């Protein structure tokens, strides 16, 4: 038998390819296969059973009982013969079999006396492995056992097919998920890209509408304005949705005036109510004025729901009502409702109206317009605020949409600064940092219209140059610019120039954390683009007035002093008083010494002052002193004149704050 030709199936390459397709070789044991092996052992009453696969040079056991190895060389395996066949190979007594009598597996090794093996045949006809029953004594299977073996063989192949299909499905699923992601980001980018030129269209139309026009021209412009604003609404819907989908939409927690917000929604939509509709706003007497939450999103939700109500109500009433349901030490629980007497929603549509691109009536889209995204956005916005939207409706009787939101109570201190004084701001000098030429032009017209002066810098660096040359009252800062973006520029203005000039961020994308980031690096306010003239003006008023009230931007960290004073307030106060008494004088002496180019004195003074400045953890000022000291040591003042100015301003600022403590 040793010199016998090794049996190789005629379709060996294809057979091996078929085996590879299943990716089964060298995988870990699996229950499904082990169960099948056990079944073979039980049914045939044998101590040895296995499921194996045969590749180029080995027989690998996917599952085995009584063998104890994971693979054997192909040339010593019995099964290399079995896969040459199409049906069960049964050898009741190997001693009586010419071919196997002297096989090493028979005389020693596994001491095989009985062998029954059936090929594992793929659906396309390749024998990739075997399923076997083996015993140390002679045996003969009955027909039921033979039949069972071939059934199990089929099951094993099915199992393999299933595995492969599952892997394919998994891959397809991943591809599909990627495609959804790509779609979302495409939508977000596209709508962002569309908004920029649309911004210009709406803005210039606004300006055009303020010029002298004849009646026909006025009519045309009105139409352009309405169309532009509708288009913007749709784009905003899509952008919002893609932001929600990608988890990029944040719910703000800022103090806001609830009554004002509701009044705003009411005033905004009053014009859309048809004359036969009574449009009401009912506010609970117990309703709080100020709460902490997302005012913009509440606005969006109510405008959407109320807009729908007005759209679908030709006569009767539309009512927005707000009621306080509950109050804890920290929270108000408020119920918002928008109720109408309009066409209503059929019962079978109530469940689907919150789905995307769905409207109650197929024909609704035609008759009433809209993207079919509004309610879906509303639902998601409410869910993001840990609540749920509910709807009650009867066809031809009307609908009510309601939800309950918990708002944190606002501290009186946190309340927004009320009453933007309507006084004249005078001729403000404004610097705009913006790279887009159309946006520059638009902002320029708007600002000039307000009666302010405007200089334009096409990037952050130019902006800083202008700030160094001229006095400005305010900076309008685009966030995305070449060379130095809005963030970097602001950081420079605040930290290097140590300037408190009010900075308003202008951006088209309102993403998660963006607003926060703006405030964190020291901007004063935030206006989304495309900006509304009114909003921009109000924001300018707010920051200018805030500035007049002289809220210093700097925060002084007294923790080091706290550590040293071991919590003794008197001592701490004493040190602060000493600082206030000494530091301004020392700064003046330092400036004099610098003017007299007295390197030695500058070195000593700056070194000494640094210890005091460090105690109050004024890192930026400490840095100035280090530079001055260093330059004094080297006997060469270059940066020093700059730094002493920054230092003087900084100290004045700090003293002011410390005096107010």
């Amino acid at each position, binding site marked *: 038998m040793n010199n016998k030709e090794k049996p190789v199936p005629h379709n060996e390459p294809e057979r091996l390819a078929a085996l590879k397709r299943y990716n089964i070789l060298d995988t870990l044991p699996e229950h499904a296969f082990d169960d099948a092996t056990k079944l073979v052992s039980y049914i045939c009453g044998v101590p040895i059973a296995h499921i194996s696969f045969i590749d180029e040079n080995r027989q690998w056991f996917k599952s085995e009982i009584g063998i104890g190895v994971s693979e054997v060389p192909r040339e010593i395996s019995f099964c290399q013969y079995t896969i040459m066949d199409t049906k069960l190979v049964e050898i009741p007594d190997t001693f009586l079999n010419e071919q196997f009598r002297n096989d090493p597996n028979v005389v020693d090794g596994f001491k095989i006396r009985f062998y029954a093996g059936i090929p594992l045949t793929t659906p396309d006809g390749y024998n990739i492995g075997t399923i076997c029953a083996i015993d140390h004594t002679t045996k003969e299977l009955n027909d039921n056992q033979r039949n069972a073996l071939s059934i199990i063989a089929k099951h094993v192949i099915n199992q393999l097919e299933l595995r492969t299909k599952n892997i394919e499905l998994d891959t397809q699923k991943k591809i599909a998920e990627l495609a959804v992601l790509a779609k979302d980001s495409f939508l977000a980018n596209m709508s962002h890209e569309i908004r920029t030129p649309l911004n210009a269209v709406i803005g210039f139309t606004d300006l055009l509408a303020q010029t002298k026009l004849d009646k026909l021209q006025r009519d045309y412009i009105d139409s352009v304005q309405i169309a532009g604003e509708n288009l913007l609404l749709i784009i905003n819907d899509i952008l919002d949705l893609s932001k929600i989908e990608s988890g990029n939409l944040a719910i703000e927690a800022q103090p806001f005036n609830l009554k004002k917000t509701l009044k705003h929604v009411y005033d905004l939509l009053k014009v859309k109510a048809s004359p036969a509709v009574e449009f009401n706003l009912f506010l609970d007497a117990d309703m709080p004025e100020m709460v902490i939450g997302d005012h913009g999103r509440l606005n969006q939700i109510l405008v959407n729901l109320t807009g729908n109500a007005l759209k679908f109500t030709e006569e009767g009433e539309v009512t927005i009502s707000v009621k306080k349901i509950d109050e804890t030490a920290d929270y108000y629980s408020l119920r918002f409702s928008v109720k109408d007497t309009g066409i209503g929603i059929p019962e079978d549509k109530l469940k689907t109206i919150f789905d995307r691109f769905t409207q109650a009536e197929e024909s609704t889209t035609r008759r009433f317009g809209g993207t079919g995204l509004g309610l879906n956005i509303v639902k998601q916005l409410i869910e993001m605020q840990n609540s749920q939207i509910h709807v009650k409706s009867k066809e031809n009787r009307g609908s009510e949409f309601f939800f309950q939101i918990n708002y944190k109570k606002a501290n009186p201190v946190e309340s927004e600064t009320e009453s933007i004084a309507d006084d004249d701001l005078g001729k403000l000098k404004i610097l705009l940092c913006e790279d887009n030429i159309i946006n520059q032009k638009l902002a320029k017209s708007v600002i000039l219209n307000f009666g302010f002066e405007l200089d334009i810098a096409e990037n952050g660096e130019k902006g800083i140059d202008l700030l160094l040359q001229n006095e400005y009252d305010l900076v309008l800062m685009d966030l995305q610019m070449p060379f130095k973006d809005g963030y970097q520029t602001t950081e420079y203005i605040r930290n290097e120039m140590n300037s408190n000039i009010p900075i308003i961020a202008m951006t088209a994308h309102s993403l998660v954390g963006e607003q926060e980031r703006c405030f964190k690096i020291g901007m004063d306010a935030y206006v989304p683009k495309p900006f509304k003239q009114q909003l921009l003006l109000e924001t300018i008023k707010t920051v200018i007035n805030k500035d007049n009230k002289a809220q210093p931007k700097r925060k002084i960290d007294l923790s*080091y*002093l706290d*550590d*040293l*004073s*071991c919590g*003794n307030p008197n*001592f701490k106060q*004493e*040190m602060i008083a*000493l*600082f206030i008494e*000494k530091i301004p004088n020392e700064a003046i002496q330092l400036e004099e010494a610098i003017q007299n180019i007295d390197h030695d004195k500058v070195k*000593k003074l700056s*070194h*000494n002052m*640094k*210890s*005091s400045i*460090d*105690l109050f953890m004024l890192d930026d000022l400490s840095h100035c002193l280090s530079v001055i000291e260093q330059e004094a040591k080297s006997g060469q003042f270059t940066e020093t004149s700059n730094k002493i100015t920054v230092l003087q301003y900084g100290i004045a600022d700090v003293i002011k704050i410390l005096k107010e403590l």
Partner: protein
Amino acid sequence: MKIILSEDNEILRKSLSFFLESKGFTVDQFSDGKDALDAIRTNEYDLILTDINIPGISGMEITQYVRQSIGSDIPIIIFTSSGIEQTELDSFDIGANEFIAKPVSPAVLLVRINKLLNIRV
């Protein structure tokens, strides 16, 4: 335990003294190196805490004098805002036991002082 502190910045000197006194030490404070050295010569101290750059004579010179002329092994902690590595090396070279860069963390200062004093006791 009695500590002598020489530091010319008044706010820092007072703060450090207050801190150490709160922690139970007795502190004699000086803004001038010469005065500090005179005090060291006439009084018994458990530990010397000194800035390098002080008027009169420097913290380095005080250390050198204590080690070489007086021949005392009293623990000496030098602190300075000079971020130069050589300063630290020099401080140890002339016999300081500890070197702390400014701004001095009160907690770290306390730990080092205690460590030096415990070793001595």
